[in-house]
């Protein structure tokens, strides 16, 4: 019980530090906007810009962070709130298949660095461990154009401001 309480306080302190860091370096990474929930420091939201030269370019994707009380010993749970057509993102739940969010997590990572890793994943999909089988199959069969147009379509539909 005491250790649980301590975990809670430790992760709180750590998240508070990260919060201050984010406030201080707001302009450091213009592709990432990390916002903490007003009432709960264990819930965060991030807005990331789709990397250029990918079908996600021009889109803004929302991520939801749910942080365990054992953080940073355990990784945060992250999922896409914005619909995205990507081999490593579940199309319905937005779950992300990324090693650093699972077994390759290190307590030295921060929420900010997780965002960066997700941007990198958008630019470099891993079709061999797909959560979105349709997208993965397109890429694995070499149909780059098919993948690109599908991803582009969903980016336009879901991640870009509606026109008119």
């Amino acid at each position: 019980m005491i250790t649980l309480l301590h975990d809670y306080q430790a992760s709180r302190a750590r998240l508070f530090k990260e919060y201050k860091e984010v406030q201080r370096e707001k302009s450091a990474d213009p592709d990432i906007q990390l916002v903490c929930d007003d009432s709960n420091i264990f819930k965060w939201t991030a807005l990331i810009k789709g990397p250029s030269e990918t079908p996600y370019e021009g889109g803004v994707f929302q991520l939801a962070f749910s942080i365990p009380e054992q953080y940073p010993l355990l990784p945060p749970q992250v999922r896409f709130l914005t619909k995205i057509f990507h081999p490593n993102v579940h199309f319905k739940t937005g779950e992300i298949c990324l090693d650093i969010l699972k077994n390759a997590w290190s307590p030295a990572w921060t929420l900010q660095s997780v965002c960066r890793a997700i941007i990198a994943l958008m630019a470099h999909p891993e079709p061999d461990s797909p959560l979105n089988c349709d997208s993965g199959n397109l890429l694995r069969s070499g149909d780059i154009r098919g993948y690109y147009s599908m991803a582009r379509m969903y980016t336009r539909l879901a991640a870009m401001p509606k026109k008119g």
Partner: protein
Amino acid sequence: MGYDAMANDVSAPAISRDLGKKKRANRSAKLKQCKLDARREQWLSQVKNSGGKDGSMGISPALPSPHRTMSLLRHSQAVLERKSLEREVNVGSGLDGSDSDSPAHSPIPIANMHRKGSSSTSASSGCSIGLCSRSVSDAEEDREEEGKGEEKGGVDDWEAVADALSAVVDHTQDKSDSVEKEVCSKKDEDHQNISRGAFRVSEPEPNRIVHRAWRADDASRPQCLPNLSKQRSFPVNMERRFAPSASVHTGILSVPSSCPICVEDFDVTDSSFLPCCCGFRICLFCHKKILEEGDGRCPGCRKQYDRVPCMENGISGVALSFPCRFSRSFSMSLRS
């Protein structure tokens, strides 16, 4: 090789400056000679002790200088004896001219060549080195000499002497019939140097810098001098400065003020605690937690933590830094 060239360049102004001093203080130079003679005797006895006695004075004219063998060691001893003989002749023949105190025959060049450890030192360069170093500071020279005699009496140094002197030996072998002749030739060389020096005296500023630069491995020299040796000596200084705080292993990495995992400030124990050899520091508490509740891997490099970390506390940390420092200084001495 580069050192040689530098020494040759540098020697000229040093001589010209030196010369005036020598003229005026010829008597004191004589006194100094006596002192140095005594010191030479010390040296020779040391050589005899360390190198083993070898009576054969038969010296092959062409020596493979870089070879580090015992035969060379003995050889160097023989050379030294021969040298001292030669020098006596020289001193006896008179302190008459302007450069009667021919530096090639004083023990100092030997000392310098031995420090340099250059295998390709020619007789003339050795001579100019002697001049150069003497002009810097005689007192310093003396100190160095003593230090060398006592501390570094090992095989390495005497090999270096042998290497450096082998060229001289070749030189003397050719003209073994008359030492005087060689002295004359040396004088000629000196005169050439002097004339060069007169030519260069007009720009003393750069000369001064270079002139000190060749004394790279002199521990007592100022650190602010711009040369390569500064880089070489840098890690040593770093070690000396930071050894107590046990941050030797991290090198340039500075000790963070707080734990990157729990963002608590480091206390004294934490800042001397290095759980992983990659240099990633965390506090003791987080380390324990990662071992017990986490995956037991270093957050910095993801390698599995040893159950017994690199350093448990400051004391053993300092103790462990010794082999490291020792090995580094060892390699330094090999290089210099």
